[in-house]
């Protein structure tokens, strides 16, 4: 009698879940010919050597209860090269992510955080959010809590270059003596299923991966490995997800995220300097930081509200008629990372500008009103008129009301060469994160809009939850690939991703309505929408608990 799911389909499952379960043996990716069961059998095979896949492997290997599992991680790029990544202190990679405190704790618990080059990492304690369509602004920080409990200021998030994080995880794996799990420079040629060998094992619902390993130029080998649990941490076009036959829902935003590394103007006692700023002079700035006033005299500072100064501030300004927000995220030594979500046309304009013109345009985007920004973007970008952008900016700044110094974004002085780049923005969510002997994590499971900096954080949360699920299975002797055990992982992460992805999608939609010349039209409707958003922002910032609730949920 062959082992199979009961022939009468279970009444307790909806049609699509039943379909998924019965499809398990028919899953495939690529054309694979598997005529015999592989000798190489692994407990956990992870496809994808990005931060999410590496974090999962590190979590499994750093816990004594799961370190005995036979693991493999398959990555097309050369991981040893990533372990030796190095940039001088005045240059930063343009791919940097904002890591929440929860994920920082996770990375500390698996022993990877200490391997980061902490001089290249910038914790920030405040996020200033503004809207070009109105005067509203909101500051996300934990200052109220710090004042109430007389405690040090809590970090909102920490900016870490992706390459720094990857290198730290690889170093931790070396420390754990687990580098033989890394199948670097290997690509997945196809994924199929094992066979039911009448004289041996029945691996017909075990995924079997055919790998091409690039050895030397002449020799490249193919091998087949069987996985008790196959994990897809292989990005938005995940082959593992394709193997499982899991569909995705979502849409393209028709927007691009433009990234670059910026150099900022150092201010005296600038919050962007890597040493902690002088408490007294910065104090007045922050004490005057309330929503009604635009300027306060130092004499209004009271001793009752002594909050510690923050180490750095992140800035985000919504540009409703330009396709999305611009964000400046702090890095050490007066550097910052730019993420500007905008239309494809504006993105290609920005990438074609000279570094100094781009710097002026970014400054304009942070300070001027949208009509002026649009004008600046329309200036020709050829190198003859290199100072046009700068002079336009200077002239227009004189005629635009500026936010108070405490809330003013920094002036960009330069753009690091070769860092401007862009990537398309999309929303994707897999219809299921699990399948028998299979789980998806990171971008393979969900891709969201970058405006809240939560994409990688969701992925790291997936890695933590999946490692915990595997640990629970091992503790009770269960098969780590058992579909019922994986349900716990799916239940924990699916709702979370939908909440986050859906939330930023709604926010993105709301912040592209209204604003001069936007799709909602100029004039009355646009102005009204802008005012409503301003009211919304005021509510979030001033109704007690709402802002803290959002920060807690996101962090």
């Amino acid at each position, binding site marked *: 009698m062959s082992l199979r799911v009961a022939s009468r389909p279970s009444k307790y499952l909806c049609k699509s879940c039943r379909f998924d379960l019965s499809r398990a043996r028919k899953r495939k990716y690529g054309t694979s010919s598997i005529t015999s069961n592989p000798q190489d059998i692994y407990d956990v095979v992870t496809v994808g050597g990005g931060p999410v896949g590496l974090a999962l492997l590190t979590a499994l290997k750093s816990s004594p209860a799961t370190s005995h599992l036979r693991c493999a991680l398959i990555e097309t790029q050369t991981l040893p090269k990533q372990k030796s990544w190095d940039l001088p202190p005045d240059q930063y990679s343009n791919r940097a992510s904002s890591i929440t405190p929860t994920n920082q704790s996770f990375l500390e618990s698996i022993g990877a955080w200490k391997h980061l080059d902490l001089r290249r990492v910038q914790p920030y304690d405040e996020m200033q959010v503004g809207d070009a369509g109105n005067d509203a602004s909101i500051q996300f920080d934990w200052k109220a809590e710090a004042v109430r409990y007389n405690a040090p200021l809590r970090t909102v998030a920490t900016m870490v270059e992706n390459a720094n994080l990857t290198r730290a995880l690889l170093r931790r794996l070396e420390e754990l003596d687990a580098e033989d799990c890394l199948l670097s420079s290997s690509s997945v040629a196809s994924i199929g299923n094992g066979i039911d060998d009448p004289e041996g094992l*029945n691996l017909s619902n075990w995924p079997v991966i055919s790998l091409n390993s690039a050895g030397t130029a002449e020799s490249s080998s193919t091998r087949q490995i069987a996985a008790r649990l196959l994990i897809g941490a292989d990005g938005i076009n995940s082959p593992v997800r394709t193997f499982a036959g899991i569909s995705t829902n979502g849409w393209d935003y028709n927007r691009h995220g433009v990234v670059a590394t910026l150099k900022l103007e150092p201010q005296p006692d600038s919050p962007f300097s890597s040493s902690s700023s002088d408490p007294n002079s910065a104090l007045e700035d922050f004490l005057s930081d309330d929503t009604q006033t635009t300027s306060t005299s130092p004499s209004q500072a009271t001793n009752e509200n002594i909050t510690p100064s923050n180490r750095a501030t992140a800035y985000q300004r919504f540009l409703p008629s330009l396709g999305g927000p611009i964000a400046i995220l702090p890095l050490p030594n007066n550097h910052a990372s730019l993420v500007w979500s905008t239309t494809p046309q504006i993105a290609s304009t920005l990438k074609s500008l000279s570094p100094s013109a781009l710097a002026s345009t970014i400054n304009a985007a942070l300070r001027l009103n949208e009509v002026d920004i649009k004008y600046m973007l329309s200036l020709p970008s050829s190198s003859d008129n290199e100072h046009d952008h700068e002079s336009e900016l200077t002239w227009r700044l004189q005629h635009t009301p500026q936010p108070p110094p405490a809330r003013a974004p920094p002036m960009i002085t330069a753009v690091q060469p070769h860092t401007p780049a862009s990537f398309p923005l999309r929303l994707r969510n897999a219809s299921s994160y699990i399948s028998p002997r299979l789980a998806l994590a990171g971008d393979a499971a969900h891709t969201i809009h970058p405006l809240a900096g939560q994409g990688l954080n969701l992925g790291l949360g997936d890695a933590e939850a999946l490692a915990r699920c595997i640990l629970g299975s091992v503790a009770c002797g269960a098969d780590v690939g058992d579909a019922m055990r994986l349900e716990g992982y799916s239940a924990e992460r699916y709702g979370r991703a939908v909440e986050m992805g859906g939330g930023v999608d709604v926010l993105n939609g709301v912040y592209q309505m209204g604003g001069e010349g936007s799709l909602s039209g100029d004039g009355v409707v646009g102005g009204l929408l802008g005012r409503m958003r301003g009211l919304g922002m005021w509510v979030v910032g001033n109704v007690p608990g709402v802002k803290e609730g959002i920060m807690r949920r996101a962090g």
Partner: protein
Amino acid sequence: MSRVPRIAPRLLRQPWQTTQREGATAVAVLRPTTVRLYSTTPARAHAAQPSGTGSSVSASEVTHFTNLASSWWDPHGPSRLLHLMNPLRHDFIKSCLSTSADSAAVGPERAKKYAYLDIGCGGGIFASSAARLPSTSSVTAIDPTAEVIKVAKEHQRADPLLSLPGRLNYVNCAIEDLESHLKTFDFVTLFEVIEHIDRPSTFLRQALNHLKPGGWLIGSTIARHPLSYFTTKVIAEAPWPIGVVPRGTHDWDKYINPSELRDWFAKENREASERGEEDIYGAVKVEGCVCLPLVGWKFVGRSEEFGNYFFGVQKLR
């Protein structure tokens, strides 16, 4: 004890009669079924009978489980509750070990590996999970129903770890057929078994014969209480979509209360002391658990009085 009003023809059971499957409409009579545990009817000689029809096994039970065999490993099938309960079994075993009389753990690395005998293993939910633990040396799993042993062996073939030689051994037999291996097991496990046995007293004695001194008898069953009648017969065996197990799975009359178990082991100890010997068994450890919808199984204090519970007894010598 109070009487449950009769609403249908019911059984008046004497201890020597086998149970008849009646399904959910049979109303149980509340009678002191301590008689069930203290029955002194000797085990019938079974030499002429094929394996599986010995004294501890009821033919109707075998038939019932034969029908359930093919869906045993369906995670959304009738056995889902057993799958969900399995982690609690391991938690209970760990908590018994920690109270063990010889729990002088030798440093962080416990080199000791355990041998298990799982009686009434069914499709092997517990047996296979025990076989995967790093602290297990071997698991012998027996069941009188041939069809479920076939399912268990098929499941074993799908896992290289379980197929390692000597790790997991399924045998289609009843406990009385297992003449060898006396006193060779660290754990004898009886999960959701004793409520399907006609003569539990004899059965327990046979099971305990296979325990090493210092070994543990660990099992789970259901207490006999009006509330357990309601939950396990009226609700759990109700038609879809309310019910979760097939009709006829349980017979309320056969449930055993924790107090009855305690009395039985106390009696064994008393008889030993009358003979001038030391206590054979340690104190009976009991933990109640409850299955909550959408949550699963949880240990709930004092729920052993009216619902499912785990029991563990150490054989001291």
